[in-house]
């Protein structure tokens, strides 16, 4: 099939009656009506911030220091807490809330000298990360104690590499870089990426394994141990933290999460939820219908399902973000669903509002709905609904267009391109009824 044929067929498929539609005036009226109901008089600034309905304040937000503090271990037996009834706040409280956030969003960060041109600033569990262009290369710097504090670490990848943000793996800082290669590199030692800054000892390196054509291979290595991996390629090997054992992969995309005994890997995360569980020797992939089949990673041959794995018919959902958990049927849960840890066999009920469109990372559940995204904390049962927000789970934080939903045990830095505002002193949820 030629490109033109495909274009023509798609164009034909796209053609056709669009059906009845409102006039532009009716569309504007709908938007205006919603806004006035949602915000109340005089609170226009809140439309650019966050609109949260039926919110529960996550009580852990103002807790421990943020640098290098892992999230608290989840309680396997925690049950969902019903969403409280909404009480309407005083209009002045809503207005004050909106104005406070608006002022924060429009403030200009005081960036340290030397971060490069057109810096991109964000915050995560490590602190504030600044990425800018310096000398034709991208420089990424980390400020663990905020922009006013000292530079913790920075790195400048070799020319041709694209720099990514810093990320946390346990108590380790990992920088990311990637490169698209036109041909596989010759065998030999992996290339190292230069590390600058006060933490310039060869502790953090980014190495290239192999690639071809449009494939991208990236490895994050710390003290010779692979802690982070992203592969889009054909064939390769990666060392595991346990020792010299190597895992061979073919034609897959891997997204690995380190833990003390191995790497949990979601394979081909943009395809279907191929799922590694327990160790890195067996992965699962969808079989017929809702069933699952286990495959040996080395031989790529089917094997028996691991002990403790739920009956295939019980598995209802899986998502690329599901990591080592599954969503299974659970009549005792308010939603009829529960998150199951196949390794421990423990389950956690899912709040009633979460019935479709799951994404799960750690204790945070996301569900897409036409009337907004619901964010749930499986540990406490708290839920918030976010409207008119682009939502992305970044591991430690659920990033919103204008802020973060912060995991339990973390503080709440705020992200907006070009702006960094510590939100510790700001309210994290809209007052009920605003």
């Amino acid at each position: 099939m030629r490109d033109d044929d495909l274009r023509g067929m798609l164009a034909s498929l796209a053609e056709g009656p669009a059906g009845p539609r409102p006039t532009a005036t009716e569309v504007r009226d709908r938007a205006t009506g919603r806004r006035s109901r949602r915000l109340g008089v005089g609170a226009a600034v809140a439309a650019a911030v966050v609109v949260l309905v039926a919110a529960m304040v996550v009580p852990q937000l103002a807790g421990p220091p943020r640098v290098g503090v892992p999230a608290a271990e989840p309680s396997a037996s925690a049950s969902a807490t019903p969403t409280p009834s909404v009480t309407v706040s005083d209009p002045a409280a809503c207005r004050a809330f909106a104005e406070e956030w608006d002022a924060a969003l429009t403030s200009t960060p005081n960036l340290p000298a030397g971060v490069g041109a057109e810096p991109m600033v964000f915050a995560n569990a490590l602190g504030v990360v600044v990425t800018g262009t310096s000398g034709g290369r991208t420089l990424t710097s980390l400020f663990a104690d905020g922009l006013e504090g000292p530079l913790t670490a920075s790195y400048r990848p070799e020319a041709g590499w694209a720099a990514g943000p810093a990320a946390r793996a346990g108590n380790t800082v990992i920088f990311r870089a990637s490169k698209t290669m036109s041909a596989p590199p010759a065998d030999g030692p992996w290339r190292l990426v230069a590390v600058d800054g006060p933490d310039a000892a060869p502790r953090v390196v980014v190495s290239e394994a192999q690639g071809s054509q449009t494939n991208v291979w990236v490895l994050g290595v710390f003290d010779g141990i692979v802690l982070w991996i992203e592969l889009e390629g054909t064939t390769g090997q990666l060392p595991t933290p346990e020792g010299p054992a190597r895992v061979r992969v073919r034609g897959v995309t891997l997204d690995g999460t380190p833990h003390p005994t191995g790497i949990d890997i979601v394979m081909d995360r943009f395809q279907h939820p191929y799922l590694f569980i327990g160790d890195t020797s067996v992965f699962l992939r969808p079989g017929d219908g809702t069933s699952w089949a286990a495959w040996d990673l080395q031989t790529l041959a089917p094997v028996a399902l691991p002990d403790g794995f739920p009956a295939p018919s019980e598995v209802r959902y899986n998502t690329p973000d599901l990591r080592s958990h599954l969503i299974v049927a659970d009549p005792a849960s308010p939603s009829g669903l529960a998150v199951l840890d196949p390794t421990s066999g423990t389950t956690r009920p899912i709040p009633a509002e979460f019935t479709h469109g799951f994404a799960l990372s750690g204790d945070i559940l996301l569900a897409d709905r036409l009337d907004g995204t619901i964010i749930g904390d499986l540990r406490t049962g708290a839920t918030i609904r976010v409207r008119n927000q682009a939502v992305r789970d970044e591991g430690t934080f659920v990033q919103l267009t204008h802020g973060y939903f912060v995991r339990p045990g973390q503080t709440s830095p705020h992200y907006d391109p070009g702006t960094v505002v510590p939100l510790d002193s700001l309210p994290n949820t809209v007052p009920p009824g605003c």
Partner: protein
Amino acid sequence: MDAAAFDAWYESRYDALVGQVSVMCGSRVAASDAVQEAFVRAWARRVEVGGYEHRDAWIRTVARRLAVSEWRRSRRVDFLTVDPAACDPDPTTLVALRRALAGLPDNHRHAVVLHYLVDLPVAAIAAELGVGEGTVRVWLSRGRARLEQLLSDTEEVPHA
């Protein structure tokens, strides 16, 4: 963005956006609802959206997410209940194409539609989908190959 500019934008782009999103999500009804809702949100944020250089990309992204969300909720029923009579000019081929598109992962299908229907270059697709250009190339390559395979399978084993 004032009302006149918004109205002109809505009138000029609505049908095309519904067509594009319908191919992405598999349902013209869901696409229509999603595009309407996206325009509602655009007006609610008109000051911000009016300053965007690529407003069509923004509204297509919003509509796509809304439609995909609804499509997941409906469990892809629309993909399986295509009315051949509604497809013109070649119902058999287009139904097969629609079924083949349903067989693609979301990201691959969105990349294919944005490239071959909306005619966006790889860089623009990467920006709209929030991924790297290399990833988009992989999605396009895999999506295209899978599409051809699925269409080939359809030709070999015609539907009853």
